[in-house]
């Protein structure tokens, strides 16, 4: 009650008028980083290593205590997590929530596999460097890949690799909601050693939950219509949620054809070829053109767009636009950068290879 009233006051027009133009959050966080009226932040309260094999990227579950502004999440949703990876630049990545449905302000967990290929890597930071007590920046939970409020009697969950996290959230929610129906859970991993949540899954198995952990590299069957039929019978009408890497998802989609019963989510790492050529896509206008190697501003204009600009020499920032993905080279300094969702001055940035710009 008191919290709700406090939040109501902090979000009021009166407080907004008193704190304009900066807004109340920019004052609150100087008093206590866990106080917020609009923004969402979280304190890391625990880091648990799920898989920690030598020579393998670590998988860690990070428990987060969000600010009271966290609106909660539904199993299957994801959240953007922003951290200052090298102590300086903030980088943001999206992770699925791995814990059961959360209510406003409630703790939740994300489970991340360190990705050392990408620098700076939020996942590597969380898995190897983060310490309890540190703050991270969050978005609200997002995504439509969720269980309905009334869960059908019979459902199927299919995941591969790290795609297990949203399904784990669903499974845990079903446990908590005391779902009485029949759940079949299929998970594909490289080997038994790579299996995260192994013990918990063993504990859940039985009681209407049917768990199949499959390791095709060790001889287990791949996902195919024949296998699904053997396991489930007339499977294509059973409500199914599937999440995993592209090859698995292609197999699932092929097996279910156009069935309305299937909901999917991809785990899509942004591709960057790092060579000249490729395509520039302009996300907002839906235009596309072959990358000529000129600056984004010149190419956008050649493609018929009219982006804002001022000096056209990199000093006034009028032309700043968000690069969604791809590698760009600063034509003044020769510096390259491939951070996703990065603000670039398009008058001095030339893409190398594929690139998506919010124009």
């Amino acid at each position, binding site marked *: 009650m008191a919290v709700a009233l406090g939040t109501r006051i902090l979000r009021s027009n009166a407080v907004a008028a*008193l704190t*304009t133009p900066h807004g109340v959050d920019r004052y609150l966080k*100087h008093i206590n980083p866990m106080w917020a009226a609009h923004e969402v932040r979280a304190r890391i309260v625990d880091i648990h290593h799920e898989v920690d094999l030598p020579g393998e990227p670590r998988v860690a579950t990070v428990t987060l205590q969000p600010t009271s502004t966290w609106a909660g999440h539904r199993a299957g949703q994801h959240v953007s997590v922003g951290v200052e990876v*090298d102590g300086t*630049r903030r980088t943001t990545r999206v992770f699925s929530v791995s814990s059961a449905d959360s209510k406003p302000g409630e703790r939740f967990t994300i489970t991340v596999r360190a990705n050392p290929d990408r620098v700076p890597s939020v996942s590597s930071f969380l898995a190897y460097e983060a310490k309890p007590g540190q703050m991270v920046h969050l978005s609200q939970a997002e995504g439509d890949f969720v269980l309905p409020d009334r869960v059908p009697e019979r459902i199927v969950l299919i995941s591969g690799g790290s795609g297990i996290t949203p399904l784990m959230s669903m499974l845990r929610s079903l446990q908590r909601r005391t779902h009485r129906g029949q759940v079949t859970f299929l998970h594909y991993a490289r080997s038994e050693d790579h299996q995260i949540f192994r013990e918990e899954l063993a504990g859940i198995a039985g009681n209407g939950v049917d768990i199949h952990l499959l390791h095709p590299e060790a001889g287990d069957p791949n996902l195919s219509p024949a296998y699904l039929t053997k396991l489930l019978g007339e499977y294509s009408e059973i409500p199914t949620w599937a999440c995993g890497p592209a090859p698995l998802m292609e197999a699932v989609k092929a097996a279910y054809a156009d069935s309305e019963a299937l909901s999917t989510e991809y785990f899509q790492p942004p591709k960057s070829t790092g060579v000249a050529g490729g395509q520039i896509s302009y996300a907002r206008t839906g235009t596309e053109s072959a990358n000529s190697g000129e600056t984004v501003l010149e190419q956008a204009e050649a493609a018929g767009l009219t982006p804002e600009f001022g000096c056209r020499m990199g*000093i006034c*920032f009028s032309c700043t636009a968000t690069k969604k993905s791809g590698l760009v080279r600063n034509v003044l*300094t020769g510096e390259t950068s491939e951070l996703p969702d990065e*603000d670039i001055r398009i008058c001095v940035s030339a893409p190398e290879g594929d690139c998506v710009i919010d124009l």
Partner: protein
Amino acid sequence: MTTTVMNKIALKNPFKFREDEAVPTLTPEQMDAFGVELDAIRARVIADLGEVDREYLYKIVRIQRRCEIAGRALFYLPVIGWLPAVAALSVSKILDNMEIGHNVMHGQYDWLGDPDYNSRVFDWDTMAPAENWKYGHNYMHHTYTNIVGKDRDVGYGILRMAEDQPWRPYYLGNAAYAFGLMMLFEWGVGVHDLEVDELVAGRRTWAENRDIGARIWKKVKKQVTKDYIMWPLLTGPLFPLTFAGNFTANIVRNIWTFNIIFCGHFPAGAQTFTIEECENETRGHWYYRQLLGSANISGSKLMHVMSGNLSHQIEHHLFPDLPARRYPEIAAEIREICERYDLPYNSGPLHRQLGSVFAKIVRLSFPTPRRKVTAVTEVTAAPMAA
């Protein structure tokens, strides 16, 4: 007679100095080499940006927020609280506008990836809406620095600040207008982008101003509500005192920012340029123009922080998007380069730069007597030492 000597003499006696008498020039080769040297400094600083810069910004923001909170709170202490409240609030507004607002809106901290200090998101505690200001300042002023007829910061459309601006009897009031602009500086900057003088002259239409005007109106309403209604109301019976205190803090900030900015561009020795001179200019010439059009103020560290390091106006104009806290550390190097190229590096203590600005404002309120053009060409054509 070399140009630098002339400049030194001129700076000693600002009342006698006249612009254009000694514009030092460089050969195209020198100009290019000059540009390369400055580019190298820029690259080095960018490579070095990191945690210290982030921590510095956050520290200044912490100090500013605390001053603001202290200022607002001290108004509850009648009589003894009033002066400290005004002082704290003035400091808060000055830090907010200069070391934080001006610099963040230049994109100096965009690389942090922190949306709170991103040039596209940030707005400051003053009448001018960020979006309008960024166009007039970051684009028009920083690209066309001191080009008469292009850079609207030359005289702000009100004053005569360069001899190239033709004299009219209106300018007899130059000093009075300057005083008025100083007191109402935040309002001046706010309506600056409407280009009222251009509107009156018929070179600009009302339609062009619709969006700009709407943004100003929205921002002004918010600023006025905050400082002159909401915070005073919150202090109940002390309303008039709080109102007066907020008003005073705004004026203090106006006076300070006006003086810093005018000292940065208009003391004796700072050059103005014509549009023709700057057509097809090279990177080197651009740097050269930025250097000659700016002036530094020497002083203590506190003075530099309170001016948002715009006391290093030269470095700021050479590298507008580098975090301003880096300007002091590169200043010595810039000065050394200038010496080598025999270019003036205009720097002086606040009182001297102010005196010289004031002298110029008064001098330019009267018509400028014609000069012999030959003297200028002679000096410009003189060979320069490398």
